[in-house]
C-alpha cells in the first residue's frame, strides 16, 4: 500500500463510520416521526391499536440498538425512545385482566343440569372460559372439557352486562373399563373432539369499592354442527353452561 492509499484510507474510514451513524440516525428519525404520529393518534383517538403500533416501533428501535456497536449512540437512542414513548404508555388505554374460578351447571340439550367446575380468564376484551364436568357410573367414566375463547362487548352502557362471541372447543372422553376378566373384552375408550361457536352474556356484578375482587355470572351456549351435512342444514348440538365465577381483576 502506498502512502497515498494509506492516507486516503485514514481519511475515508472515519467518514464511512460517520455515514453509518448518520444513516442510522436518519432511520431513527424516520421511526421517531412514525412514533410521533402514533402518539398523536393515540392521544386523539385513544385506540389501543395505536398503542400496540407504538410498542412495535419500540421493539424495532431495540433491534436497531442490538445491531449498533456504538454504545453511546445506543444509550442515547434508548433515552430518546424512553422520552418519546412515555406519553404513549401514559395515554394508551390500560389493559384490564381478570381471573376467576367457580361453579357451573351444564345442560346437554335435554334440560337436565349437571354440575361443572369453571375457570375464567380475561384480558382486555377477550375472555377464555374453561369448563370441566364428568360422571362415573359403574365401569363407565365420562370426562368433558369445554373451552370457549371469545371477544367480549359491553352492552347496555355501564350495567355490567356484556356479550361474548367466539370459538368453542370440546373434548369428550368416554372410558369403559371392566375389572372382571369376564367382561374386559368390552373395555373401550373414546375421545370425541369438535370445534364450534361460543356465545353468551355475562354480568359482572360486584360494586366498585371492593376491587380487586371480581365476580361474574355467565350464561353460555357452545354450539357444534351435527356433522358436515347436518351443519349445512343447521342441525346442531349444544352445551349450555350457567356459571358463577369469583376471582380478582387487575386494571
Amino acid at each position: 500500500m502506498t502512502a497515498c492509499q494509506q492516507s486516503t484510507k485514514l481519511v475515508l474510514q472515519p467518514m464511512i463510520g460517520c455515514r453509518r451513524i448518520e444513516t442510522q440516525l436518519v432511520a431513527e428519525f424516520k421511526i421517531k416521526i412514525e412514533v410521533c404520529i402514533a402518539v398523536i393518534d393515540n392521544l386523539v383517538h385513544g385506540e389501543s391499536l395505536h398503542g400496540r403500533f407504538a410498542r412495535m416501533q419500540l421493539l424495532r428501535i431495540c433491534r436497531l440498538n442490538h445491531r449498533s456497536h456504538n454504545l453511546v449512540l445506543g444509550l442515547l437512542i434508548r433515552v430518546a425512545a424512553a422520552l418519546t414513548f412515555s406519553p404513549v404508555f401514559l395515554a394508551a388505554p390500560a389493559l384490564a385482566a381478570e381471573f376467576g374460578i367457580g361453579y357451573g351447571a351444564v345442560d346437554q340439550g335435554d334440560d337436565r343440569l349437571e354440575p361443572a367446575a369453571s375457570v375464567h380468564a380475561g384480558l382486555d376484551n377477550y375472555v377464555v372460559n374453561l369448563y370441566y364436568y364428568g360422571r362415573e357410573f359403574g365401569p363407565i367414566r365420562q370426562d368433558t372439557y369445554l373451552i370457549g375463547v371469545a371477544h367480549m362487548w359491553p352492552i347496555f352502557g355501564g350495567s355490567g352486562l356484556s356479550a361474548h362471541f367466539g370459538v368453542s372447543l370440546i373434548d369428550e372422553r368416554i372410558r369403559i373399563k371392566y375389572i372382571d376378566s369376564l367382561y374386559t373384552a368390552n373395555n373401550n375408550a373414546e375421545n370425541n373432539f369438535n370445534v364450534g361457536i361460543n356465545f353468551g352474556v355475562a354480568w359482572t356484578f360486584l360494586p366498585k369499592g371492593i376491587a380487586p375482587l371480581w365476580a361474574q355470572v355467565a350464561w353460555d351456549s357452545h354450539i357444534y354442527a351435527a356433522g358436515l351435512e347436518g351443519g349445512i342444514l343447521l342441525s346442531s348440538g349444544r352445551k349450555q353452561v350457567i356459571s358463577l365465577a369469583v376471582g380478582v381483576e387487575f386494571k
Partner: protein
Amino acid sequence: MKWSRAELCRISIALYMLFAGLFSLALPTPSAFAGALTLHVGPPGIGSGGANPLSIPPVNILEYEVEYITSNDFETCLSVSPGIFFGKRTRILKGSTYVGLGGGIVIDTNGAGPGVYSSIGYNTSGSFIQFNMEVKQAIGIDSTSHKLISPYALRIGATFIL
C-alpha cells in the same frame, strides 16, 4: 300456594304483555325507517336431547320464526320454540352484528313458562332485503314442574326493511 298450569300460563302471558306494553310506551316515534321484519328458518333445540331435529323439506312450523324490529332496535320474536319474546338489541361491530336481550315466554318440549333470552345475529347490508343469521338461547321455568327449560335455535333468514 300452588297455582294450576292454566293460571301460570295466564300469569306468563300477562307478564309478557306488561313488559311489551311498558317497552312500547318507552319507544319514541319512528322517523326515517319504520322497522324491519325478519323471517327465519332453522331447527330449534327443543330440549329433547341430542342434535336438534330437522325436517327436509322444512315444512315443520317448529323451524320458523318471525321477528319485528323497530327503528329503535326493540324486537318482538314469535316462534313455537324457543318461544315468544320482547327485547332490545345492542349493535356491535359497526352495526352489522347485534346482541339481543329480553324476556317472554319460553317454550320447549318439556313445558312452557316465563323466562329470558339472549341472541347474537348478523345482517348483511341492503336497502330492502338483507341476509340474516342468528343464534338465540332462552332459559325459563316450566309453569307446571317449575324446572328449568332451555331451548335454543340457530337460524338463517331474510330481513325486509319496511
